[in-house]
């Protein structure tokens, strides 16, 4: 009897042949389909908490900007960012150092029948933030005085120049409906109790968030009737989706940015939001292996940052000399140490250390892993063995926090990146004494640093502020616990038929996108 049909081996053979065929290059030309007036974007995960008081940030802020009133918004002036009043206010003025007057536009109404937007909503929204997870942004807020249905005054407890820029323009500056919040129980998570903005919000977990035109909206119409944000976790997958014409705009990684910059495909543009990220390699000053400052200084001298910028970031990022990002008051133009392996070996010999073996923890993504491997090779050259330990974002962000377990005790080296807002004070707040074991994972304290932090907030003279922040970064560097790496830009590729609007910290504002 003869057997016919698919045999296991026949199947294997066919599959191998087909696989080989599939390897033949099949380059698609980037085609951008303009589907009516829909803007197709990518978000990196579901929006879990839309409440400005308890959100994580990122794309949740993007959603708030579409559905909630804000008093101020970022305005781009060449390379620098300033602010301007939004459509929601007819007046927003800084009367003196501690008083900001505002008047809401007439005719703004909340959805779901919650009536007009009132000054009392602003008072409720801002004063509740003082007891929220984002209270740091409202430290300087004393109270909000309501002077009429639509007018009021924001009163600060001390002069704090960056209040409008970093608080009112950012997610925490969102205004909520007091009545709707009372009905919702004071907090909300994945749907807004009431919206007032050009779009309404609807999300399918794991798939997409959709912003549709708000029928109650009387203000200026946005360029797109509908915005679809697809949940795509991986940057690379999003890049491929963009190249296949499935997205109109998406964030790109360093090597793709380099490729596009070199050879820009037709109909494609690049928009850089800002370079408000600072990355460094941190060292735990309390760890027995790194207690000796000479060991830490040796590591500072041993790491070749220029190679990291080329090897891991394709030369697309600015070299860092501290935590203050390019374009901000207090940015340093050089570091106090340089790449010098010979000096590193000397310092190690002085400290009497040999055969040192340390663990370098990093987030498990492409650029950080490459950086970690370059650092590993650099330190091997001066006789320090580095074990690279890649971590997922969950354990990574918890490892230095005393409230999240005991890993902080074993923490030795790590690659860290923080994002910030366009004012230098924001970046320095994480390294004060009371942040030890919270975000100051290097675990040093310095009374001068703490004093300068307060002075920097209250100082209004630009030159003096500059000096204060430069000095603060010197103090950090002198602990030996920091190897400054780079400032990564938030870069987006987009179809030229779409104009991108992004905050300096990288959040997109869909309603301010342009078409054509």
């Amino acid at each position: 009897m003869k057997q016919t049909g698919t045999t296991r081996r026949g199947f294997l053979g066919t599959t191998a042949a087909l696989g080989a065929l599939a390897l033949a290059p099949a380059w698609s030309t980037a085609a951008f389909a303009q589907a009516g007036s829909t803007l197709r974007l990518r978000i990196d995960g579901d929006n879990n908490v839309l409440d400005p008081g308890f959100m994580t940030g990122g794309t949740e802020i993007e959603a708030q900007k579409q559905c909630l009133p804000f008093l101020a918004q970022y305005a781009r002036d060449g390379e620098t960012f300033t602010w301007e009043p939004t459509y929601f206010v007819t007046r927003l003025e800084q009367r003196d150092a501690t008083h900001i007057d505002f008047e809401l536009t007439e005719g703004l109404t909340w959805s779901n029948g919650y009536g007009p937007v009132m000054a009392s909503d602003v008072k409720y929204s801002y004063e509740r933030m003082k007891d929220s997870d984002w209270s740091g942004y409202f430290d300087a807020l004393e109270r909000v005085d309501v002077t009429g249905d639509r007018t009021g005054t924001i009163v600060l407890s001390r002069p704090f120049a960056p209040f409008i820029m970093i608080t009112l323009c950012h997610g925490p500056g969102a205004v909520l409906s007091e009545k709707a919040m009372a009905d919702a129980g004071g907090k909300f998570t994945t749907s807004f109790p009431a919206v007032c903005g050009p779009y309404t919000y609807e999300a399918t977990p794991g798939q997409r968030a959709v912003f549709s035109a708000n029928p109650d909206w009387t203000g200026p119409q946005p360029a797109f009737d509908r915005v679809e944000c697809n949940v795509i976790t991986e940057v690379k997958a999003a890049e491929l989706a963009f190249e296949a014409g499935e997205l109109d705009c998406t964030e790109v990684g360093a090597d793709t940015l380099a490729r596009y910059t070199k050879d820009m495909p037709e109909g494609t543009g690049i928009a850089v939001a800002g370079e408000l990220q600072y990355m460094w390699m941190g060292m735990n000053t309390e760890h027995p292996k790194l207690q000796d400052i000479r060991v830490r200084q040796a590591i500072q001298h041993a790491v070749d940052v220029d190679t990291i910028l080329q090897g891991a970031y394709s030369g697309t990022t600015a070299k860092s000399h501290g935590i203050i990002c390019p374009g901000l008051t207090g940015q340093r133009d050089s570091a106090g140490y340089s790449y010098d392996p010979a000096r590193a070996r000397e310092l190690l010999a002085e400290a009497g250390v040999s055969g040192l073996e340390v663990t370098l923890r990093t987030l498990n993504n492409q650029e950080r892993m490459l950086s970690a491997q370059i650092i590993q090779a650099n330190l091997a050259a001066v006789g320090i063995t580095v074990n690279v330990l890649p971590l997922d974002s969950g354990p990574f962000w918890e490892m230095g926090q005393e409230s999240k377990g005991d890993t902080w005790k074993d923490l030795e080296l790590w690659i860290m990146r923080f994002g910030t807002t366009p004012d230098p004070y924001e970046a320095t707040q994480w390294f004060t004494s009371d942040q030890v074991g919270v975000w100051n994972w290097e675990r040093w304290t310095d009374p001068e640093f703490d004093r300068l932090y307060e002075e920097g907030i209250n100082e209004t003279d630009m030159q003096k502020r500059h000096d204060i922040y430069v000095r603060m970064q010197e103090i950090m560097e002198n602990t030996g616990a920091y190897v400054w790496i780079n400032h990564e830009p938030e870069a987006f590729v987009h179809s030229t038929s779409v104009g991108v609007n992004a905050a300096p910290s990288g959040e997109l504002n869909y309603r301010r996108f342009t078409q054509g």
Partner: protein
Amino acid sequence: MIPVSENPSESETGIPAVDATGLPDHVTEAEIRESAAREHREKLRSFLTNWQGLTGLILVILFFASAIFAPWLAPYDPNALDVPSRLSGPNLEHLAGTDQLGRDTLSRILYGGRVALYIAAIGVSVSLVIGLILGMIAGFGPRWLDSLLLLLFDTVRSFPTIVLALATVALTGPSLSVVLAIVIITSIPQYARVARTATLTLRNTDFILAERSLGASMTRTLLHHVMPNVVGPLLILAAMDVPVVVTVEAGLSFLGLGVTPPTASWGTILNEGYLVIRDAPWMVIAGGIPLILTTLGFTFLGEALRDIFDPRMGKGR
């Protein structure tokens, strides 16, 4: 009462039953030798004329040789950085190009083969031995032990390998020994189940019953009489299991859960290649070829061996 077969030749193995002198009446020792030698020659010839089996053998030998001799074959240190010449295409200096840090991809593939070989050799042989022992005990031992072991095997088998690995690595952190442990734990049950079934069919055959009636201990029966009859199919199964283990290692390393940097593994090469696929597509190809060849090689070899040594297999499978 033990039923004793009247059949002069043993039904399972086809070996003629023997009398008190150790030989059947109708054959001489020389004839038996001649017959066995003829059988070996036939099997060898049928293997050598089987192109798939031969291809498989060559690929497997290549896999072993390239991994074992990697330090002599590799043109560069696999971890030596050369950032200025990063992402260069295949050329005379770098036959398979370089990766993002300027490391020579060919050298990394050769060294990556060592990781694959290490995991496959240790993982498969350890799980084979443990699986064989447990399977024979389950098949030969008392009923309650059999049920207990079966429950254990099925419990382990019900875990998806990758999910189990993800959970374990989340607790312990990535390392090669964790990958090895996972490979061993998840492959034991399949060997054990095959060994158990084969032992069960042997358990009540005449020669085993005879051995037991002569007072042989369980260890001796298992080691000298059951094992030689069970191990053949298991070895073929193991040969076919090697590519599975190699891809599990590559898969875990691809996800960043296997080897830690800077160690090269085919999985990490694939992952790094995937990340730069639009800039440097040859890296994915270079990382994928050894995986494909290894899989094909072991599968072809395993199948050819099975066809030749397992008389129950018909043609055309």
